[in-house]
């Protein structure tokens, strides 16, 4: 009896020790994870001398805006350009530092990819899960196989295709392949499987059209999935770099990721300037993330429930 008690007590001590130890480790790791961001932000305000010194300044001894000034004075681009198809008319916004335009392009690209992906994937995922049609299994297998396909595989054909479609060097050349990526269909399909067949049967007997059944019955049920997909797509397209690298060339068409990558190629070791670009690229999305943190985590989690 007492031996067992001893054992338990020992176990408790051990468990306490383990707990304390893991908290220390996780805190250290958290610091390590936050450090790059800290380094970006402080680095962007450091002087050239502080950046290049062999002894790093953990906290900038002098805060300067030089790097941002350099970043914004480098190149200019109109804030927006809107071309009316089949005409010569182009509306251009006021001239802005190119980096601002890049940010705007990235936002547009991410939002457009997100919206298009959600719409197409919601419909397709629903059809795959709930409609019995010929070729369904084949399509689904194709989707599963293509899901992990890196875009580098289809690099050259895709580039030539975009050239033929006259989409090369437009933001759409980046958006369409993201929308075509079938992960979203897969995700929504998993959700849609949970829609009870009876509900759809009932709707059919009531004489509801296919579209109405989808819109009124299925859509509300797969909404959490769409939320998850929306966040997932937004972040993936925000972080995407490869398609942009291949498809975009004009200064006014770049995205912020590509812009920083170019900054780095042109200015090799001017890390202050590069960090200013990195800060500009990351701060907005981090703010959005922190503000909507609850939805983010919820959205991300939703995806796995049915995974």
């Amino acid at each position, binding site marked *: 009896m007492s031996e067992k008690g001893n054992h338990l007590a020992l176990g408790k001590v051990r468990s306490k020790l383990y707990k304390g130890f893991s908290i220390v*480790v996780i805190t250290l790791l958290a610091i390590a994870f936050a450090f790059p961001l800290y380094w970006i932000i402080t680095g962007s305000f450091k002087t050239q001398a502080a950046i290049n010194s062999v002894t790093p300044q953990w906290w900038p001894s002098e805060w300067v805006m030089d790097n941002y000034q350099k970043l914004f004075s480098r190149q200019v681009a109109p804030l927006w350009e809107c071309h009316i198809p089949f005409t010569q008319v182009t509306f251009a916004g006021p001239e802005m530092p190119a980096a601002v335009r890049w940010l705007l392009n990235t936002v547009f690209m991410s939002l457009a990819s997100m919206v298009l992906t959600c719409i197409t994937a919601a419909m397709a995922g629903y059809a795959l899960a709930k409609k019995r049609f010929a070729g369904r299994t084949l399509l689904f297998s194709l989707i599963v196989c293509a899901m992990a396909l890196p875009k580098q595989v289809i690099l050259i054909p895709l580039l030539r295709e975009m050239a033929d479609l006259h989409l090369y060097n437009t933001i759409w050349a980046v958006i369409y392949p993201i929308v075509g990526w079938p992960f979203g269909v897969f995700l929504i399909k998993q959700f849609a499987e949970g829609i009870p067949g009876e509900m759809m049967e009932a709707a059919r007997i009531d004489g509801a059209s296919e579209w109405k059944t989808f819109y009124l019955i299925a859509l509300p049920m797969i909404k959490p999935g769409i939320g998850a997909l929306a966040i997932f797509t937004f972040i993936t397209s925000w972080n995407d770099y490869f398609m942009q690298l291949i498809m975009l060339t004009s200064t006014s068409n770049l995205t912020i990721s590509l812009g920083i990558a170019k900054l780095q190629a042109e200015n090799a070791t001017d890390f202050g300037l590069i960090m200013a670009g990195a800060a500009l690229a990351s701060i907005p999305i981090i703010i959005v993330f922190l503000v909507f943190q609850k939805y983010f985590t919820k959205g991300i989690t939703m995806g796995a429930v049915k995974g």
Partner: protein
Amino acid sequence: MKKKNSMSRALVMRETVAGYAFMLPSLVFFIGFVIYPMIQCIITSFFDSTMNRDDIFIGFQNYIEMFHDSVFLGALKNTFIIVVVSVPIVCIFSLWAATVIYDLKGPVCSIFRCIFYLPVVTGSVAVTVVWKWMFNNYYGIFNYVGTHTGILNQNINWLGDERFALGCVILILLTTSVGQPIVLYVSALSNVDQSLVEAAEVDGATRFQCFWKIKWAQIMPTTLYILIITMINSFQCFALIQLLTSGGPNHSTDTIMYYIYYNAFKLYRYGYGNAMGVVLAVIIAVLSAVQFKLAKTD
């Protein structure tokens, strides 16, 4: 009898039409920007194709050459190293981190969760450039800390040294990969049936047994999902390599993804690049299929 048959046929018709109608928008994009280029890719892989010249049919020559190309084989190996190292580490680490964080409860838990998610939202390019600075041979922070604490005898050229470059790439990949799994695991753990856990504890199960026998089974679906997204993530690590090392030094960080790009735009060998793409696609398709089959049977 006859009537019923035609009825059901009408139903089948209706299902098929509706099915394809719903699939249509997605199929336009999927076929247009994934399947069609993939077919093109397969066709061109049998040609000697380069810039501004008619393609020359060469049969399986590209494929044969590939398996004699030591750089390609090295790239294949590196690709697998990246996937094989990062996927398990991400899963195990994030599970461990999630259990620790989960125990903290409340706002502390969500702060930690946020911090580990930060590298994901910071963006791959921004993360890469800051790591490039930290790894810098001459004034990177790693060398400074290493030499001043006595861990390193002399500066290490992290990204320029064959022995370390791939490890550095994987390290960065890890930091950008664990955010999502941790969030997923934390929420999966909170969905674990607590009464079962308590019952087991009363029965004298150790912490480990408790975890393995009860929690693990319940978070299995999450684990599978994490495996899929981490694998996808690891195969997509192009930006890291292009910006950090360009595949060097001495091709030690080449992955197939980067080597395709390298062949296309540095060596102008489109056919050869496409052939590699086909091989990679087949490998990935098989992996996905296997993974999917496993998930199904589980």
